[in-house]
């Protein structure tokens, strides 16, 4: 009986599994194979492609930028969204509405905002106009190192609401009685935050960081639509490298790069699963 039921489970899974094998897993195993071959795809070269990749200046620049972007954006986003959620949690009257409002950027197609970004961050655009009004020096946003910060801003803008929803869900699981007991014992707001809120949010913290990291790959859309294939050096990301290699048909480098990125993400996923298991 049980074995038969197991087969039924597989049957339910079958259509999807076939598609995943056909469109992803089988071709990806071919990519793994190619990552050990030369560019023409017939000579075994061992780890040569990987070695070449690690020495490639464009790749190194992109890795550096991507790491820098991640290390700045994710802590900034986590902090800003946590702070907002804590405030929001206590706004009984406006909380729900505001939470939905913060999610709006998720619905706005990148292609539609590009127009706004162009008008805002042009050298004679609105932002520089405001800067002048505040007596700050104007910047050529898209063609200098400032481009990196435009990207950071755009990531924060897009993902703030998403993270707020996640934090709020985490805050909702902390029983009010904990706070009440602490207040009775004379604990102040900061004390409550550090002794109750933060420790209780620790499990959520990890999940939210990983999801924020994965969402950070999507900033490429903004970067690409605003600045094209070869943007200012400061916002040249891994995704740009992949795109440009694809156009040049450097399949050997692409294959090695894809395998390496997949390994990094696989490691993150296993860590995430572990965190979920501990909780469940």
């Amino acid at each position, binding site marked *: 009986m049980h074995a038969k039921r197991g087969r*039924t*489970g*597989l049957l339910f*899974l079958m*259509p*999807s599994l076939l598609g*995943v094998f056909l469109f*992803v897993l*089988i*071709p*990806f195993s*071919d*990519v793994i194979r190619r990552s050990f071959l030369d560019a023409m795809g017939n000579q075994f070269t061992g780890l040569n492609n990987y070695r070449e990749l690690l020495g490639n200046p464009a790749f190194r620049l992109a890795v550096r930028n991507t790491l820098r972007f991640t290390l700045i954006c994710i802590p900034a986003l986590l902090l800003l969204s946590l702070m907002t959620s804590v405030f929001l949690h206590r*706004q009984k009257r406006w909380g729900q509405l*505001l939470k*939905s*409002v*913060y*999610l*709006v*950027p*998720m*619905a*706005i*197609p*990148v*292609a*539609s905002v590009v*127009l*706004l970004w162009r*008008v805002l961050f042009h050298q*004679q*655009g*609105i932002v520089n*106009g405001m800067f002048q009004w505040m007596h700050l020096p104007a910047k050529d946003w898209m063609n200098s190192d400032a481009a990196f910060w435009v990207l950071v801003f755009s990531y924060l803008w897009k993902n*703030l609401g*998403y993270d707020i929803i996640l934090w709020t*869900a*985490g805050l909702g699981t902390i029983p009010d009685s904990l706070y009440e007991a602490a207040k009775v014992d004379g604990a102040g707001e900061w004390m409550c935050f550090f002794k109750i809120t933060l420790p209780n949010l620790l499990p*959520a913290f990890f*999940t939210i960081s990983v999801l924020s990291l994965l969402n950070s*790959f*999507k900033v490429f859309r903004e970067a690409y*639509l605003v600045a094209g294939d070869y943007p200012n050096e400061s916002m040249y990301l891994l995704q740009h490298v*992949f*795109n440009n290699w*694809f156009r040049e048909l450097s*399949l050997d480098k*692409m*294959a090695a790069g*894809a395998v390496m*990125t*997949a390994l990094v*993400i696989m490691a993150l*996923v*296993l860590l*995430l*699963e572990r965190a*979920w298991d501990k*909780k469940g």
Partner: protein
Amino acid sequence: MKQKIILFFLGILAAAACYPIIFLIAGSLMGYQELGAYLAPVLGEAKGFAGWTLFPMYPTLRGYVELLLDSPSFFIMFWNSAAITGGILVGQLLTGVTAAWGFARYQFPGKRVLFTIYIALMMMPFQVTMLSSYLILNKLELLNTHWALILPGAFSTFSVFLMYRFFTSIPEAVIESARLDGAGEWQIFWHIGLPLGSGGIVSAMVLGFLECWNLIEQPLTFLKDRSLWPLSLYLPEISLQDAAMAFAASVITLAPALFVFLAGQDYLEQGIVAAAVKE
């Protein structure tokens, strides 16, 4: 006082979140002259800086009229976007719902490994699978057709994962009792799983829609023919010289996504939470 400062801070963030919508709508209602006056510095026709207002002085629908009457390519792109999004979502419904049910409700050998693979795939950015997708689509001769986007998209493992989370929260007792009453496995899926898991299915569709309407990397890589492009690639091509049209096109592209967002709001929030936190 402290309360007021907090509310002020929250209000500023809310304004920043909504500003693009207001900006685009205001722009789409301006005539060429008004837009030209505000944007002249950005277009390189004047000194100083671009300005803006949220209330057009002389509101007009000319941008929309021009877009809808004089640019047939816009209709083609809109239709392309709709076909791609619709195709992917239907595919996810057909294959994803049953797969999620299989993962959520049955034990079978290899389940853990397969499920880990599904999670890993949903986390992979497009660039990782770009080459492999290209290789298989090339082999199947699907490049430069909408199928090149629809087929890989239809097997998105994210929607499976999301619906799985909802299906697992159905109590086992409900299913056991149906089994005792002699219901077959398919009947249980159809009469219990689907209705009780409908929230998850809607969530997956809402999140799926927002994602597909926004596809950029895939069409850019797999569609050579511009007449097949979706709106997301067409919009940035309109130059600011045709500002009124660019604004109208941006608003029309935004409209379906905003509609789905407003209609599916609760499901969207549930979906975001369900994908991250285990019950």
